[in-house]
C-alpha cells in the first residue's frame, strides 16, 4: 500500500513540474508556477525519504540524509537570498553545476556497487550505459557551469588556443571511445577506465566553456541546464523512477528550446555561439584595425541643460547600470525630468545586460513602472522623434556595426537604432570596448557625446545639477 502512495507522490510531482513550467512562461502566472513546482518537489522528496522501498527494504541512514538536506537548505537558501541582483546569472550557473555534480556522484556510487556485485565480464550492458551517460553529461555540466560561474564573476578570463575546437572534438571522441570500450569489452580494468572517463569529461566541460565569450554565458548556462536535465533523467532510468525521468527530460527538452530562443533573440545560431565568434580570437578582426576617430566629451552641466529642456528622452540601460547598481538613481532622474514635463522612457534591448530580462528585473527593483519599459521594436519606431538618448553602460546593443559591417562578430544582431535620435549621450567608465571586444562607431559620430564615469555617481551628480538649474 505504501508503495502506491509513493507512486501518487511521484505523479503529483511530475504534473506540478509540467504545470510549473507552463505557468513560468507567462508573466502573470510565473511566480505561482515556481511555487507549485517547488511544492511538487517537496512532496516527491518527502515521499522518497519515507516511502521508498527496494526489495522490501526501506531506506536507512536518515541522519545522513537529513543532515545533508539541512546543510544544503541552509547554504542554498542563504546564498540565494543574499546574492545581489546583478549576480543572479552566476548564481543560477552555480546551482546548475551542483545538480550536475549530484548526477555525477550518483553515477560513481552506482558504478562501484555494480563492479562489486558482478564479475567484470557480466556487467549488465544497459545499466552501465545509463550510468556512463549520467556520469559524462553530469560532469560536463558541473565543470562547464563552474567555469561559466567563474567567467561571470570575473574570476576566469576568456581563454582559447589555436585548434581548440579540434582538441575538443578529439577529447569528446576519446570519451565516447572509452565508454564504448567499457560497455562492449568489459574487463578487470573497468574501474580505471571509468575514472578516466570521469576525468576527461570534467576536462571537456572546462574546455567546452573556456573559449566562449562572457556575453554568451546565458546561452551556455541554458544549454548546460538542459544537459543537467538529461543527466537527471539518466538517474530516472537507473532507478526506474518516473518523477526523475519526467522532470529531467522535461527540463532537457524545454532547456534546449529555450537555448535556441535565446540565440534567436540575438539573431545568431547556436553553432555560432558555441564556436565562439566572440572569443579571444576575433578581437584582432578587421573591426579592431580601424583607426579610432575622435570623440567629444560633454560636461555634467551641459547634460543637465540638454536633458531638462528636451521634450522626449530615452534611457538605454546596459550592464554598466547593473554593475554600478544605479537603478534607483536612474529612476530618480526619470521622476525629476518627468516633473519638468519631459517624456522619459526606457528602451530595453532583449539581451542588454548579462541575461535576457536582466534590465527589466533591475529597473523593476527600483519601482520603474512597467509601461515605461519599451521593447526594442517599439523603441526603434520612437527614436527619430526623440531629443536625447541617454545610454547608461550599454555598448554592443547600440553598436551600428551590427548593421553595417559584415565582418563584425555581432553582424546581424538587431540593435537599438539610437543614432536616429537628435542627441546621443553615452555614459561609460572609459573608452574600453564592451563585452564583444569590438569598437563602437557610435561613440565617434558627431551627434554623440561622451559622459565618462561610474553610472551611479554620474546620475547622482546629474540629478543635483538638474535640481540647481
Amino acid at each position, binding site marked *: 500500500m505504501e508503495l502506491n502512495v509513493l507512486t501518487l507522490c511521484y505523479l503529483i510531482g511530475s504534473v506540478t513540474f509540467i504545470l510549473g513550467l507552463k505557468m513560468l512562461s507567462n508573466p502573470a502566472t510565473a511566480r505561482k508556477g515556481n*511555487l507549485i513546482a517547488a511544492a511538487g518537489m517537496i512532496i516527491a522528496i518527502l515521499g522518497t525519504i519515507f516511502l521508498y522501498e527496494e526489495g522490501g527494504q526501506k531506506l536507512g541512514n536518515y541522519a545522513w*540524509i537529513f543532515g545533508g538536506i539541512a546543510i544544503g537548505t541552509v547554504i542554498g537558501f542563504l546564498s540565494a537570498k543574499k546574492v545581489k541582483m546583478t549576480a*543572479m546569472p552566476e548564481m543560477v550557473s552555480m*546551482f546548475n553545476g551542483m545538480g550536475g555534480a549530484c548526477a555525477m556522484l550518483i553515477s560513481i556510487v552506482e558504478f562501484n556497487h555494480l563492479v562489486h556485485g558482478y564479475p567484470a565480464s557480466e556487467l549488465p550492458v544497459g545499466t552501465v550505459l545509463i550510468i556512463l551517460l549520467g556520469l559524462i553529461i553530469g560532469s560536463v555540466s558541473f565543470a562547464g557551469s563552474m567555469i561559466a560561474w567563474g567567467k561571470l564573476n570575473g574570476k576566469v578570463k576568456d581563454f582559447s588556443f589555436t585548434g581548440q575546437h579540434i582538441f575538443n572534438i578529439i577529447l569528446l571522441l576519446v570519451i565516447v571511445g572509452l565508454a564504448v570500450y567499457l560497455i562492449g569489452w568489459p574487463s578487470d580494468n573497468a574501474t580505471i577506465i571509468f575514472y578516466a572517463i570521469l576525468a576527461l569529461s570534467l576536462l571537456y566541460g572546462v574546455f567546452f566553456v573556456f573559449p566562449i565569450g562572457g556575453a554568451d554565458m546565458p546561452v551556455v548556462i541554458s544549454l548546460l541546464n538542459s544537459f543537467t*536535465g538529461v543527466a537527471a533523467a539518466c538517474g530516472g532510468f537507473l532507478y526506474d523512477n518516473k518523477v526523475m525521468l519526467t522532470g529531467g527530460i522535461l527540463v532537457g*527538452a524545454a532547456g534546449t*528550446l529555450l537555448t535556441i530562443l535565446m540565440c534567436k533573440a540575438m539573431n545568431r545560431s547556436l553553432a555560432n555561439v558555441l564556436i565562439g565568434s566572440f572569443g579571444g580570437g576575433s578581437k584582432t578582426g578587421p573591426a579592431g584595425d580601424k583607426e579610432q576617430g575622435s570623440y567629444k566629451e560633454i560636461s555634467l552641466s551641459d547634460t543637465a541643460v540638454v536633458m531638462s529642456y528636451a521634450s522626449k528622452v530615452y534611457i538605454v540601460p546596459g550592464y554598466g547600470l547593473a554593475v554600478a547598481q544605479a537603478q534607483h538613481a536612474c529612476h530618480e532622474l526619470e521622476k525629476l525630468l518627468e516633473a519638468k514635463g519631459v517624456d522619459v522612457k526606457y528602451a530595453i534591448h532583449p539581451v542588454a545586460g548579462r541575461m535576457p530580462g536582466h534590465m527589466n528585473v533591475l529597473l523593476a527593483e527600483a519601482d520603474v513602472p512597467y509601461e515605461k519599459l519599451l521593447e526594442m521594436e517599439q523603441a526603434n519606431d520612437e527614436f527619430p522623434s526623440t531629443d536625447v538618448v541617454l545610454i547608461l553602460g550599454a555598448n554592443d546593443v547600440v553598436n551600428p556595426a551590427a548593421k553595417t559591417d559584415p565582418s563584425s562578430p555581432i553582424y546581424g544582431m538587431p540593435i537599438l537604432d539610437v543614432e536616429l535620435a537628435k542627441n546621443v549621450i553615452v555614459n561609460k567608465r572609459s573608452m574600453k570596448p564592451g563585452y564583444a571586444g569590438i569598437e563602437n562607431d557610435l561613440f565617434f559620430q558627431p551627434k554623440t557625446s561622451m559622459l565618462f564615469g561610474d553610472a551611479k555617481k554620474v546620475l547622482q551628480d546629474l540629478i543635483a545639477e538638474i535640481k540647481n538649474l
Partner: protein
Amino acid sequence: MENILSWITANQQIIYIVILMIFVGIEVIGRVPSVLHTPLMSGANAIHGVVIIGAIIVMGKAESDNYLALVLGFIAVIVGTLNVVGGFVVTDRMLEMFKKKKK
C-alpha cells in the same frame, strides 16, 4: 536486431515517457516572451534538481561500512539540495520583481 527489439519491449513504458516529455517540454514553453527567459531558465534549473531523489536513494541504501557510498552520497544530497532550494529561491526572487512592476 532481436536484442534491440527486446530492449525496446522491456523498456517501452520509459521510452514512451521520454518521447512524450520531449514534446511536452517543447510545447509548454513555446511562446515565452524574451523578458521571461532568465526566470524560466532558473525555474527549469530548480526542477532538474529532482536528481536529488537519486542521491537520497544512494544515501539510504548505502551499507554502513561502504565509506565511498556514504561520503559521496552525503555530498550528493548536499549539492542536490543546493540545486533545489537555491534554484527555487532565486527564481522566486527574480519573479518577485516582476510582480512589483505590474502594480
